[in-house]
């Protein structure tokens, strides 16, 4: 009995990749560092208690910035490690469509990000004990954060496919993630408005991750933001597949 080849290899890749995350200590270290820094930012810098408001705004506001460093660390091994160890040769001589490998790996890394997010749920419980927050808004913000995490992982996946060195994949992914995140910041916007007119600068800002996460973290679901993140993921994964397939050219 044969399953559909693409789905079978996707599932097998996903399982293998997830197993690699849970059996090596690095993923735990990354998740621990993530939880530590999100706590530090939320309470120390975000002034969670000082605000005396039962919401998670100071928590979500830091997600793009922490993801930008944390998620490239999760995704850096996806393809770089395969080429370094030579296992990529084994993978690419199996009769599996490239997209199924790309997607399987991406989903595994995204699951790690999701697990890290789940571990912040006690915070949600806490604000409910302290007051009565808008739980629907928090739920939306969590979903948006998860979707955004997918975009960062997808960026990391492309960078990992471009190099054999995990550290290079990491640095490139942080760099690209930063640019794409910060396009919406006044700092960057002012720079652009110096060269182009305000309308164009405004247009550029619409392509930033920050811009699209902004409304969502306040609990507003905007279709175009969902569309933005999904397209960013699809685009990056397509580039990953192209980069992986380009190896066959030699």
């Amino acid at each position, binding site marked *: 009995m044969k399953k559909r080849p693409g789905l079978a290899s996707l599932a097998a890749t996903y399982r293998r990749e997830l197993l690699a995350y849970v059996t090596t200590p690095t993923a735990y270290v990354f998740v621990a560092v993530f939880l530590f820094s999100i706590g530090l930012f939320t309470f120390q810098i975000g002034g969670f208690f000082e605000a005396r408001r039962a919401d998670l705004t100071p928590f979500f506001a830091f997600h793009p910035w922490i993801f930008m460093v944390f998620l490239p660390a999760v995704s850096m091994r996806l393809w770089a490690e395969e080429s370094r160890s030579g296992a990529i*040769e*084994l993978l690419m001589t199996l*009769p599996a469509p490239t997209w199924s490998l790309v997607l399987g790996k991406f989903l595994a890394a995204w699951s790690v990000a999701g697990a890290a997010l789940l571990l912040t749920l006690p915070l949600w419980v806490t604000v409910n004990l302290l007051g009565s927050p808008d739980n629907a808004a928090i739920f939306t913000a969590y979903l948006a954060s998860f979707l955004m995490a997918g975009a960062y992982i997808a960026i990391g996946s492309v960078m990992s496919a471009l190099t054999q060195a995990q550290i290079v994949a990491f640095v490139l992914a942080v760099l690209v993630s930063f640019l794409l995140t910060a396009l919406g910041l006044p700092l960057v916007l002012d720079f652009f408005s110096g060269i182009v007119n305000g309308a164009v600068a405004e247009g550029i800002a619409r392509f930033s991750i920050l811009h699209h996460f902004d409304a969502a973290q306040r609990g507003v679901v905007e279709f175009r933001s969902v569309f933005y993140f999904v397209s960013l993921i699809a685009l990056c994964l397509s580039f990953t597949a192209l980069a992986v397939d380009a190896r066959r050219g030699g």
Partner: protein
Amino acid sequence: MLLQVDGLRKTFGRRTAVDGIGFALDVGEIVGFLGPNGAGKTTTMRMIAGYLEPDEGVAKIFNIDVAQDRRRAQERVGYLPEGAPLYGEMTPWSFLRFVAETRGMSREAARHAVRRAAQDARLGDTIDRPIETLSKGYRRRVGLASALLHDPMLLILDEPTDGLDPNQRHAVRDLIKRLGEERGLIISTHSLEEVEAVCTRAIIIDQGRIVADKAPAALKDEHGSLERAFAALTRGEERV
């Protein structure tokens, strides 16, 4: 015809690695690829296994063009890459399961295939130990088992006995001979003695071209010994 290779060419930058290689292979044949390092053996094998695309020429497995219809061709090939790279943190059992399931086997079929391949490759009780803790010989056997999982008609083994001790080498050679009875095999090796011991045919490659394609016995008759044949036919970098 099990395998038909015609005019394969591959260049990397300005270096021509494979320069017009062609041969055919039938069931029951065990072909030994011989040649100095950098002669193009691995590149040729990679093109047949569908890891690299040729710049020119075709490789057809059961008349399926590897470059045109890669996945269908790959379903019919078992390939052991040079050095048998594996995932060190996995056990042979989970690794072989992964390969079987990626090949599209159902869980039941995968379990069955893994058990059979592990037996063929004599993995014994190493099946539950992390691959990174295994000896080179056992790692090579895990690689072999992964190439045998789907019971392919064509096996391409890049240096299957490299780095093994004499006992392990003997065991792998026996396995190769047994497999060769009803399949087609290509193995690459630096051991001329191995070619004599297991191959029905020797293909000597030098600078990307086939310089001899004969039975080992015929090469011996012509040159006195395989060593002499090898030395006479190839321009090794060592002899300036």
